[in-house]
Structures are given as C-alpha cells and as structure tokens.
C-alpha cells in the first residue's frame, strides 16, 4: 500500500498521546482539610466502609462488606449512646480512586472512622488521608507494614485487624522448608504492588536464611497477561516451589501458564488466594497462608460460620471474617471511649487488650498491628482444606 509519510506528525501524535494518558492517570490526588460537622440533638456516629466492590479483586470487596454489615447488624445499629450510620464506597482496587472516595467520606460525609480498604495498595494511600484529617482507620486485611508506620513514624489513627507481611512471608518459607521439606524455590511477583513486593522479599529472606535456595526472583507488571518467557526460564531451573504472592485472578492466570510450560513445582501463596473465584483446578495441591480457616475447631469460629451462613448462605472467607473482626474492634473502642471524637476512639483502640475476635484474641503492639497466628490452607479436591496453624 502506497502512502505519504510524515514522521514529524507521528512524533507529535505520540507525544500528545503520552501527555493525555499521563493527564488521565495522574491528575486528581489532593486531600482537603475540612471542619467538623455541627452536632445535632440526636447522637449519631458516622462510619465509612471502603472496599473493592468491582474490578479485579471484587470478591474481596463483597466479602468484607458482608462482614462489616453483619457486625453492625449484630450491634443493633447502635454503639454506646450513639446510633450508627454508615456509608459504603468502592475503590475498584485503584489507589487514586481510593484516595478520592476516602476524601469524600471524610470531607463530605463527615465520617469519624473508616473500615477499609482491603488491599495494601489502596489502604496505604487512604491511611495518609485519614491520619492527616485525624479520622480513625482500621483496615481489615492490609498486611503491608507501611500501612501503620511510614519511614519510622507511626500513623496514630491507623490500625489493622490482620498480621503483617514479614510474618506471612516468613511463615510460608518455614512451612516450605520444614513441613514440605522442599529446598529450592522460584518467586514471581508484581513489581507495582506493595503487597506482593513485601511478601516476595520476606519469603526470599526467610527461605534463604533457613537453608533453601531461591533460583529465580522475577517480577511482572500489573496488567501483564503473557508470562510465557519468564515461565519458560523458570521451567528450565526446575524449582520445587513456585511462590506466587499475588491476588487470586493473577495467580490463576500464572498458574495455568506455568503448568502449560511444564512447571511441576508446588504452588505456594499468601492470603490473596482466598476467593471463591480462584481457579481451583489449576491451583490444585497448592498451599497458602491465611488469617483463619472455617474448619478451625474453636467455638468462636463455629458460631461465626453459622451466623454468616444463615445470613449470606455461604462459608465466610478470611476477608469477611477480618472485616467482621475489624468492625467489632472499632465498635468496642467507640463504646469504651463513649465518644465520637476520633482522638479518643484511637486511644481506646490502641489500648485494646485480649479482645476476643473470630480470628483470635487481639492485643495491639505499639505500631497498631495485632499479634496473632496464621493458618496454612491447601487447595485440595476443589476446596480449601485446613492444614496447620502457625503462631508467631
């Protein structure tokens, strides 16, 4: 096909394209400071919920929302002298959107506390907004240490209801070495996600310290769908373990391609696997670390599973459980403080000691992290099967 060509025009077009894309993606991150609302006659406390209700990890959002609502319902919509009003927001598992909805909840809806978000990459940006605006934030499931501490400085208003990545990565490495007796591993993680970077690094550190060898330490970008080159490379190294510390959609996709490339390694992962949308057939035989197991014989767990089943007609996953725990922790703190002042609520939350929750008794350390144990689950016969509990 013949045509006229104009290189300069194309160059201009590309520059423009990049500029437009950058403007579309970057732009709108500012948090405003806003004054307090006027107290009315009836005592009301507003709580916000943020979770990924749509997008690549939507089952996380759905589960946490269920847990959050159930906890409020069980409290009778009241805490101490206050009536609870809540706002639900969707961050689509997008960090920019997370900041936007958090800002809206704080400045427009005037919430005093936020339960959320689910993934570390959203919760960490939210924590800056919440802490700057002096609003209490408790994330049910964000495991990255940076959530509550930023460059050695504690964000006083921010808490979580789960263990942290150094613990989770270490538990996975120890389990591989001691229980599975496997000595070589390959790690594949998302280079743009705090959660997977954290897990990958802590796993590698603990695995090598325990005498194992990490044969490959590779990464990919969030939107990648073709892993064939890296997996062909890993297949040749023939590791015993393939550690995939990402969320369920991504590991399902990688797992499938890994098996196609003839990788026979045992798959190992973190709490991001916990979803009914995980590709169970592909991940068969794999293990992952989690916050809790529905098969745990403790009576608290039994009661919880029954209550949840009665309402939603499915077994609660760890996300639902942690959201329930997080909401209860928050309500308990509001009750203890008996105030809607976030400063008093956060003090009460920090002072929480041996508070009984479904996923264990919770006491906060100075960084707002609960001290608790991890469960190891296996994907077996299309189900999650409880294997072991590991204490810190």
């Amino acid at each position: 096909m013949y045509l006229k060509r104009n290189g300069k025009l194309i160059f201009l077009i590309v520059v423009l394209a990049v500029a437009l894309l950058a403007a579309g993606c970057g732009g709108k991150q500012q948090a405003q400071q806003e004054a307090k609302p006027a107290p009315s006659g009836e005592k009301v406390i507003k709580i916000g919920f943020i979770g990924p209700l749509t997008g690549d990890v939507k089952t996380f959002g759905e589960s946490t929302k269920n847990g959050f609502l159930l906890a409020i319902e069980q409290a009778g919509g009241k805490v101490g002298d206050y009536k609870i009003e809540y706002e639900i927001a969707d961050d689509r598992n997008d960090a920019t959107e997370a900041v936007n909805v958090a800002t809206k909840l704080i400045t427009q809806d005037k919430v005093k506390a936020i339960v959320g978000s689910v993934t570390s990459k959203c919760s960490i940006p939210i924590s800056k907004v919440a802490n700057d605006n002096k609003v209490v934030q408790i994330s049910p499931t964000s495991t990255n240490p940076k959530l509550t501490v930023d460059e050695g400085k504690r964000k006083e208003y921010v808490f979580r209801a789960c263990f942290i990545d150094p613990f989770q990565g270490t538990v996975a490495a120890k389990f591989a070495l001691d229980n599975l007796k496997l000595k070589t591993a390959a790690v594949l993680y998302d280079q743009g996600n705090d959660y997977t970077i954290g897990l990958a690094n802590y796993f590698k550190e603990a695995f090598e310290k325990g005498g194992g060898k990490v044969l490959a330490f590779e990464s990919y970008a969030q939107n990648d769908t073709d892993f064939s080159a890296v997996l062909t490379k890993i297949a040749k190294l023939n590791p015993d373990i393939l550690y995939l510390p990402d969320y369920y959609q991504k590991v399902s996709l990688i797992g499938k391609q890994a098996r196609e490339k003839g990788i026979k390694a045992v798959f190992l992962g973190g709490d991001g696997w916990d979803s009914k949308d995980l590709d169970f057939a592909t991940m068969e035989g794999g293990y992952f670390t989690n916050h809790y197991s529905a098969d745990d014989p403790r009576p608290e767990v039994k009661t919880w599973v029954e209550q949840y089943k009665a309402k939603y007609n499915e077994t609660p996953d760890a996300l639902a459980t942690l959201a329930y725990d997080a909401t209860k922790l928050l309500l308990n703190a509001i009750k203890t403080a008996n105030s809607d002042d976030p400063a008093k609520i956060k003090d009460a939350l920090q002072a929480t000691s041996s508070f009984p929750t479904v996923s264990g008794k919770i006491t906060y350390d100075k960084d707002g992290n609960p001290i608790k144990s991890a469960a190891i689950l296996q994907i077996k016969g299309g189900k999650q099967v409880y294997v072991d509990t590991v204490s810190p």
Partner: protein
Amino acid sequence: MEFLAQVINGLQLGLVYALIALGYTMVYGIVRLINFAHGDIFMVGAFVGYFGFTSWGLPFPLAILTAMVVCSILGVTIERVAYKPLRYAPKIAALISAFGMSLFLEYFCSLKFVFGPNFRVVKRPFEEIHWNLGGLTITNIQVMIFIVVVVMLIILQYLIFRTKIGMAMRSVSMDHNTARLMGVNVDNTISVTFAIGSAFAAVGGVLYAVAYPQIYPFMGIMPGLKAFTAAVLGGIGIIPGAVLGALIMGQVETMTSAYLSSQLRDAIAFSILILVLLIRPTGILGRTETEKV
C-alpha cells in the same frame, strides 16, 4: 532448546500483535489517522468471542466469525460517528476524537449492563494439548494461532491486490481526490477499510483471550499500544511492515524477559518506539522520500 522455546513464545505474542497492528496501519494508510480506539475494538472482539463460545454455545470458528462481524459493524460506526465529520478538519481534531472514542469504549464496556468491570476467567473452548518435540513443547493453541494468522494474512493480501475493493483502497491511500475523480466511492472504501481492520482486531482479541485466558474491559490498552509501536516500527501504512514490526516486538519482549529482566520488558518495548521515531521515523520498510505536493 530453551532459546528455541523462547522464540516460539515470542512468535505467539508477535502474531497476535500483528493482527492488531494491521488495523492501525491500514487505517493510517487510507485516512492518515491513528485510530486509538483500535485496542478497544480488540477488547470488544475478545468479549464477543468469549460470550460466543461460552454463554451462546457457538462452535469456536463461528464465535470468531461473530466477533468479526460485530467488530466490523462497531468499527464502521465509530468511523461514521467520530471520524467522518472531522475528515477535513485539522488532523489533531480527529486524533482527539479517537482518544475520546477509546475512553468511551473502555468505560462504557465497564458498565454493569454491558460487560461489567470485573475480570473474567476464559474457559477455553477446547482442551490444550502439548506436543513434545525433543525437549521443545508446542501447544495446540500456538499452532492454532499460527495457522489462523497466516490464513488471515493470505486473505488480506488477496483482498488488497486481487479484488476491486482492494484496488479502490490502494487508490484512495494514494490520493482521495484523484481516486474520487476516477469514480472510486471514497467513503465506502474508507468504511470497508475500518471494517476489515476491526475484523482483524476481533480475531486478535479472541485468540488473545484463548491464549492468555483472562479478559476485562481495559485489556485492550497495552496490546493496543504495543501493536501501535509495532506498526510504527515496521513503517506505518505499510502492511508487510506491520507484520514485521509485530514479530520483532514479540521477540524483543520475550527475549528481554528471558535473558535480561522481566522488569525491563515494557521499558525496552516502548524505548523502541522512541528510537524509531528519532532515528528512522518512516520505520524499517518505509522509504525516506520527500513529501509530494
């Protein structure tokens, strides 16, 4: 042996890019417009194909055909709505319109009553089979992609050089006005070009969904940009150039992941775009020549 396996990985990726790059290059050849909505047509193709062989229960070839028809109609509609009114406006206006179209398609398809914002795992319409050729594993999916793309390329060559509409396309690509004076229906020819380009993107989308079984409304952005890079690399407006560029892109990406670092993959892929534009803006197969008046 590992090297050969990587070459095959790269080939698989490159062939899919080629199907998208062809659409970019054909449209540019005819109307001098970079159709940035092309990557999103690819996405629609993937979704329609997916619904075809899952919910609607069509046999796989028929699902591809359905996707091609739907995307052709979509492509022509986009041309009529967003580009045709701007044909004699400054180039930048049509380009911005293309961006708008692209964003519209992405966000419209994300709506709950269209495709929804969620990721979907694609259940393949057939079992994958592995053949082991002396340490080299080849899957039936790779073979299928290879055959489909080669057949599509032959059909395209035939269309352009052996049919009347092909002749019309070639003449329009040279000069709209002269072609019109010779009795060529320029508007129809442009529509046909969009239809063919979109149909190719649809095939690319369905194959991509089968090869990398996960789809979502924003899946077209990256492959679209890479295919655009491929088209520029080969020489935009030149059909063999698009295929050549795409195959090179596939190899570059794969080899970077395999032998350098997976972190550098996209950085290197897009550095190529910048380098080509700086050093040889007409692309590999493009001849440097002075602008005709």
